[in-house]
């Protein structure tokens, strides 16, 4: 009986810690999101203002939508990256036929990360590491495509 209560209390404690963490994480995330929105606005303005003055000559990457393929858990994953004036404005999965849907769902969280951080060097989602790595590999290939002359 004693063991039962000790275990129960431990469980409640851990659940409590996680919930407490979540409360603060959400709070912080909202602040970050507000910040990011401002950044996105600034970025958009920058793109707009440079559209007329500067043709993409000096930019490192070509403008447009680029596709890349990476090896995931069950097979190939095709992703696409949209680049405007050296900014990644969108990243999406085109096809992942042989992936388990729940894994791809979990792994696709990194796509938002890519746009937010403006890099494809992001961390894999643990629990769906192999699908994540496939997506990241695809993104890297897409970026390569964009930088090739």
């Amino acid at each position, binding site marked *: 009986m004693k063991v039962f209560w000790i275990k129960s209390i431990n469980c409640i404690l851990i659940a409590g810690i996680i919930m407490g*963490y979540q409360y603060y994480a959400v709070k912080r995330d909202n602040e970050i999101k507000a910040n990011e929105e401002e950044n996105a606005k600034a970025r958009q303005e920058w793109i707009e203002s440079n559209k007329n003055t500067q043709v993409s000559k000096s930019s490192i990457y070509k403008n447009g939508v680029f596709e890349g393929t990476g090896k995931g858990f069950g097979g190939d994953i095709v992703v696409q990256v949209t680049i405007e004036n050296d900014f990644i404005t969108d990243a999406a999965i085109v096809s992942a036929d042989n992936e388990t849907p729940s894994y791809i769902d979990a792994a696709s969280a990194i796509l938002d990360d890519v746009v937010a951080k403006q890099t494809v060097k992001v961390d894999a989602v643990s629990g769906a590491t192999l699908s994540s790595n496939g997506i990241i590999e695809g993104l890297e290939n897409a970026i390569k495509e964009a930088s090739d002359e």
Partner: protein
Amino acid sequence: MNNPFKTILSNTNKKKKAQILKYVRIVVQIIFFVIFPALFSQAFGAVKEVITCMKDGKVLHMGEFVIAFIILCAVTITFGRIFCGWACAFGAFGDFVFFISSYIHKKMKKRMFKIPDKALRIMQMFKYIVLVSVVLLCYGGKGELVTKYSPWTVFSLITVRNKMFLSYKAAIVILIFIVIGMAVKERFFCQFICPLGAIFSLLPNAFMLIFNRDNNACIKGCKACKNNCPVGIKLSENHFADGECIGCARCINTCPKGNIGFVRKRTNKAN
């Protein structure tokens, strides 16, 4: 009331029921193996995901993995570790390996190696070390390492017939060791290594026991239930509370007197 014929009859009935239970379990295991071959690694993936998110200060989201983990925890709290015994694909794989191994042993008329009680208890503690190391690795941002060395990665890649498993050489070696272990000791992985099993055995069990024995009706000196238990539980003692029981119902099958039942009896003051 104490008609011996009647008792024998009721015992054989009980035994028949127990035999049916054995086959029901095998069917359930096969069904779960086909439908949810990766449920165990998904559920544990949720743990890794949550810890990695907490390290990065990210918001936790209720993904499918997290939901699977919460459901499995709820099941374990209410019914004990029946997931381990009846639904886990890796557990079923272990049972299959042990089945083949014991069949070969029988054919060769050799006895299976038996681990002494005390050593068994100590080895069962090892899974907590595995759990703590995985948690620490994830918290230290080395979650990739866990995937690299996890035998589950190779196992799940093999189940989807992906040739990529060949690139996880260290994990293949570990998996081979585990398969050898599974052949030597029943439920080797589940009781000694499984970090998900470690979490489940730390959860409180709302009913305290799933199986219960009427000690007074036991044959003197009979230890059939304990000897046949894959995780070496002594029913008369307090071991159910330690969360090792995987609810395999072997004890019900084994008891020569049909003395073990599901429901906790009031007369038994085991706890």
